């Protein structure tokens, strides 16, 4: 982030609560050329672009500047480097949003406030006295309706009028009492709020927060006038989605649609098409190219363009399989995110998740897991505690089949009839609950409580959704791509050195006697580590009875996730725990598969 600026360039940072239309404003200012990068040490993305002589930086949606989670820490770092701030607030929810605004004003960084959703404010008959707000804050306040592109020009023009905001007398006094040389007001304020370490500065977070909250309430009483009895459609829909009677059936419909779009269309139709292109055109071509330089049978040749070659399998995998899945997945997730549906699902499922030691927020990594377990494992960082992150990662690795795998599993199981399919789902669900409950009981500590804002339901803007999808997909692929490459390189080495064959022979007796499957199944399981769907596909060509198929599919799902997710788990949890998850999954997979085989076959 510490890029040097050209002289005369100012760093403009966009700040706002989640879902206030920040990205629309960002896109308006920066146009097409946006650079999305990962903030060092986190999964949080920061978009950057330029507008006139400003370097514009977006920040994740936050309710205040502090350090309660990764998003806030990143936003805090970016804000502290800003020359000026553009705070976007939701005009319908000033009570919620002004807390952040006052905090920014008190930090003493030049500020402009854009009050968004003014169209919605009018529609709901809310009256806002923005002139009064401007007087109180002491900074320019501009009304905008970003989705309708109104007011954006005025907003951009007022950037040059950015001013340091007024502080409440109490905060002013506190800042004067503790004033220090070489420390900016912003840092001093954050130190007083316990979010920045400076020696001898006491933590007065609660006192300052209370003062600020009271000031927000006083301001809102002065400038906001609500109209009575105005219950619009979105609000009614939002209320319905949270109640089990309507919410649960709608959730199932949504999951079914998601499965149809991702599991059937993207993982089936699109992947078949793209993979076909890759294997018929790309792979022979790259083999020919590499073959003209080195022998294909040499070790290097095998590593590059062999069965598990970095240039053959990895590229086919990333372009043919991962790309369509990840794009479809992020597309759906962006729609869910922007519409305001996710917090409602989190609320609806909070109680169920508590049983397995998680709270409702875990719904995001769990949903993501059905797309790609690797992606989901990275996203567990949004969870409230380390304990919850570990539980979520174990459950993801153990019980959630990713979309690539699900495609093959559904194809094989649905051929057996509905009963077997149902049995599979019930077994997975049971293991999910058992494993989660066990971890919840065994791990020290307690689950954190749900405390979330439920934003209003909104129709997502297509352009925004697409932009989000694209930048997130590219970013994921650039991060996961190398991991897949490392993985296939490892497997390639194992194959060349003959270790792969030894592993298969070692596993064969367990597979044959304990799980009552043909000996080739061992190969399929091990292949599943490389690509979960490879493993499943291996079973297609085996003559299996119905019971054997069920045992095989269950074991395969429980079995370790693919090589990329193993690498991510190792990275997230460290070597010891990562290895524990890895070995635990294999153990449980063989144990349950075996028990099922002994009972069924």
């Amino acid at each position, binding site marked *: 982030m510490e890029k040097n600026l050209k002289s005369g360039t100012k760093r403009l940072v966009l700040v706002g609560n989640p879902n206030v239309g920040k990205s629309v404003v960002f896109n308006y200012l920066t146009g097409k050329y946006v650079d999305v990068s990962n903030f060092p040490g986190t999964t949080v993305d920061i978009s950057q672009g330029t507008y006139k002589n400003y370097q514009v930086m977006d920040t994740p949606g936050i*309710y205040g500047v502090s350090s*309660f989670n990764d998003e806030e820490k990143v936003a805090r770092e970016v804000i502290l480097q800003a020359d000026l701030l553009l705070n976007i607030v939701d005009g319908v929810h000033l*009570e919620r949003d002004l807390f952040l605004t006052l905090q920014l004003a008190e930090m003493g960084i030049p500020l402009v406030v854009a009050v968004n959703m003014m169209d919605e404010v009018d529609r709901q008959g809310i009256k806002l006295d923005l002139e009064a707000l401007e007087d109180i804050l002491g900074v320019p306040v501009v009304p905008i309706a970003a989705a309708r592109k109104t007011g954006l020009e005025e907003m951009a023009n007022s950037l040059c009028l950015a001013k340091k905001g007024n502080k409440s007398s109490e905060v002013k006094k506190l800042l004067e009492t503790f004033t220090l040389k070489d420390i900016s007001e912003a840092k001093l304020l954050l130190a007083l709020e316990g979010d920045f370490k400076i020696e001898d500065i006491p933590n007065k977070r*609660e006192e300052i927060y209370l003062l600020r909250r009271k000031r927000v*309430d006083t301001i*809102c009483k002065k400038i906001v006038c*609500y109209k009575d009895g105005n219950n619009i459609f979105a609000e009614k829909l939002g209320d319905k989605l949270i109640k089990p009677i309507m919410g649960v059936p709608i959730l199932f419909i949504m999951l079914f649609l998601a499965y149809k779009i991702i599991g059937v269309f993207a993982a089936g139709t699109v992947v078949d098409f793209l993979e076909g292109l890759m294997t018929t055109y790309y792979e022979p071509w790259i083999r020919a190219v590499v073959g003209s330089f080195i022998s294909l049978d040499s070790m290097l040749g095998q590593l590059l363009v062999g069965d598990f070659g970095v240039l053959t399998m990895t590229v086919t995998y990333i372009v043919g399989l991962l790309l369509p899945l990840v794009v479809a997945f992020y597309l759906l997730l962006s729609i869910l995110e922007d519409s305001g549906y996710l917090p409602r699902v989190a609320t609806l499922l909070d109680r169920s998740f508590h049983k397995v030691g998680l709270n409702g927020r875990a719904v995001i990594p769990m949903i993501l897991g059905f797309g790609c377990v690797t992606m989901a494992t990275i996203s567990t960082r949004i969870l409230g505690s380390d304990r919850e992150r570990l539980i979520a990662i174990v459950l993801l690795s153990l019980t959630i089949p990713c979309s690539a795998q699900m495609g093959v599993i559904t194809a094989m199981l649905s051929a057996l009839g509905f009963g077997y399919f149902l049995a599979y789902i019930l077994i997975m669900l049971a293991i999910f609950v058992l494993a989660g409950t066990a971890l919840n009981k065994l791990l020290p500590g307690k689950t954190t409580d749900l*405390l979330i804002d439920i934003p209003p339901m909104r129709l997502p803007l297509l352009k925004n959704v697409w932009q989000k999808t694209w930048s997130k997909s590219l970013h994921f692929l650039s991060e996961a791509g190398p991991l897949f490459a490392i993985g296939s390189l490892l497997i390639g080495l194992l194959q060349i050195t003959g270790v792969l064959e030894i592993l298969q022979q070692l596993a064969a007796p367990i597979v044959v006697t304990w799980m009552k499957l043909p000996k080739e199944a061992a190969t399929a399981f091990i292949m599943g580590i490389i690509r979960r769907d490879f493993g499943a596909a291996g079973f297609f060509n085996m003559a299996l009875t119905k019971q054997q198929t069920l045992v095989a599919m269950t074991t395969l799902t429980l079995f370790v996730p693919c090589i990329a997710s193993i690498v991510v788990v190792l990275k997230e949890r460290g070597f010891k725990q990562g290895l524990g998850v890895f070995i635990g999954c294999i153990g449980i997979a063989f144990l349950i598969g075996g028990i099922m085989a002994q009972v069924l076959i």
Partner: protein
Amino acid sequence: MTLNQLLPGQKALLQELPEGLVRSQAIRLGLMPGTEIVCVHKLPRGPVIIKKNKQQIAIGEALAARINVKSTQKGESKGGKEPQKWN
């Protein structure tokens, strides 16, 4: 009484919030002693959804049980009708 005991439609004033990080988070979201709220919905043994003016907040059951409130108005009986209009 505590927040998780409110019935849909019932108005109340928040009185005491549990200490620690969760209190800071609650204050930031607009919940502090003296705040007037309406219970919108309570999921069976699950989170309570409250409303403060136009803003809705979901609070996990265990946390809601640690928040003391003073009821200012009776809610509906458990007839299961829509919560009454607020604002």
